[in-house]
């Protein structure tokens, strides 16, 4: 029986991992390109999830349109904060941006609770039974969720590696001064970056809202996990973020078969410490040289 449990835990871990890979990607892109850990990531997700709830309940829009709206509005939100705040902090220490991002997180969340209150909402999708293969169960909804996540991830990689815009983004990530000197419009790269980040946060938030329930703390609670996964994968590495997230969520799910489930976060924390001890640059990260 043990292998059935293992298989189920792994499947569950992969689905959650893929889903959370979207915001993890958002964190790692900002961390790599704009050089600070964006603590508002989680609450951007929450914003996305609530947008769908609002679109469905207030405007009675179909789910697909609601999701599109959530992605677009979260992207706009992210852009707004870039335009107002992060843009001014580009030349300051990353600490400034980090602290400000926490302020943004509080502002976004409290704005949501001001209008939507503290109670839970759900994004209703029809519930379907799982396909059962001798006890190994796959839920079709999970497959859709994973599918959407994978599509978004593939698109990112195409954007980063196949387009001139992606090349410019990677150049800025490598060395902002050099990129600026070689004529890259860093501002435009940043705008693209924050738009993409908002888009992913929105989409990730919606998917979590579909899988779980929509609460004001939905995204904030995930923040630590996101950061840990990004460091595990190597800061600034998109593929690393995905691998890191998958490693995390799968090992967490498997671990909770034996150790008390409550120690999930502790487990993440110690895994993080271990990685930092043995391989500070993470799985796919690069060493940053001193100039």
């Amino acid at each position, binding site marked *: 029986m043990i292998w059935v449990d293992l298989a189920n835990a792994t499947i569950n871990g992969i689905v959650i991992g893929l889903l959370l890979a979207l915001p993890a990607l958002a964190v790692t892109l900002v961390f790599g390109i704009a050089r600070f850990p964006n603590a508002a990531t989680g609450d951007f997700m929450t914003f996305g999830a609530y947008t769908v709830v609002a679109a469905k309940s207030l405007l009675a829009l179909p789910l697909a349109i609601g999701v599109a709206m959530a992605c677009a509005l979260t992207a706009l939100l992210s852009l707004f904060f870039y335009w107002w705040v992060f843009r001014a902090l580009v030349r300051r220490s990353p600490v400034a941006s980090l602290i400000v991002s926490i302020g943004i997180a509080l502002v976004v969340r409290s704005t949501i609770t001001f209008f939507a209150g503290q109670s839970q909402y759900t994004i209703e999708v029809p519930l379907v039974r799982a396909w059962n293969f001798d006890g190994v169960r796959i839920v079709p909804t999970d497959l859709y969720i994973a599918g959407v996540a994978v599509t978004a991830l593939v698109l990112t990689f195409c954007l980063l590696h196949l387009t001139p815009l992606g090349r410019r983004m990677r150049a800025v990530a490598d060395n902002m001064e050099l990129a600026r000197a070689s004529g890259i419009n860093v501002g435009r790269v940043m705008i693209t970056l924050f738009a993409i980040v908002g888009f992913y946060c929105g989409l990730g938030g919606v998917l979590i809202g579909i899988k779980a329930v929509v609460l004001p703390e939905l995204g904030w609670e995930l923040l630590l996990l996101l950061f840990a996964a990004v460091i595990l994968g190597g800061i600034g590495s998109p593929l690393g973020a995905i691998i890191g997230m998958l490693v995390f969520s799968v090992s967490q799910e498997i671990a909770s078969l034996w150790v008390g489930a409550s120690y999930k976060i502790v487990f993440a924390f110690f895994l993080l410490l271990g990685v930092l001890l043995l391989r500070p640059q993470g799985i796919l990260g*690069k*060493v940053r*040289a*001193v*100039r």
Partner: protein
Amino acid sequence: MALLSVHDLSAHFGAFTAFEHITFDLEQGSLTGLIGSNGAGKSTLFSAITGYLTPTSGQVLFAGTEVGRYAIEQRVRLGLTRTFQVPREFSGLTVFQNLMAAAPNQDGENLRSLVFAQGKVRQQERDNAERARGILDFLKLDKLASERASSLSGGQKKLLELGRVLMLEPRCIMLDEPFAGVNPVLIQELSNRIKDLHARGIALFVIEHDLTSLSRLVPKLYAMDRGRMIAEGAPEHVLKDPKVREAYMGGVI
């Protein structure tokens, strides 16, 4: 025996080669220059020698000790010091405090001594202050002693950085582009100070783009190109080397 001996040192980052098969010696009390175009690997070589990054292979011997596995601060304690291309002053401290912070082996850095050996700490502070004032006089920074380091000009910051290194009583100073961004008057000043230090028996290794100033300063030059050492010898000799002319300025000089 050479003071600093670099043997077959290479550094690769993934597919990229910063430098490879670098071998050279620096004698006690020598004054040597290192030239090369942008990206030739000079600064990276400095970083590898002083411990800021780990080379892929090869050895670094300082005063007879293999220091390849030493942390930066351990190398500094042996007397192997450096300055930076972009000055790294302690912006929140005054010029004087910048030097005081550099004083080595201070008991006052130890919390226990701060409580139990206050007399000793105070005595050390007085001694260090005296040395710091001496160095500020030597660098002609004495008038700026109580200015915030962040308010200095670029050239003054380079002097300050040199001053901090001098507080360490080093045996070898590696200067990374000391003249970059410094006005001509101050360049002359800096050159004189470097010569003075040379006269005191400190070994100096200087990366510099200002070839005129450098060749006037040093009796010996190394030249690097694309991660390799391509020439060494007297400045007039090295600068005429066709390989150097080719690599350095596309043959213009």
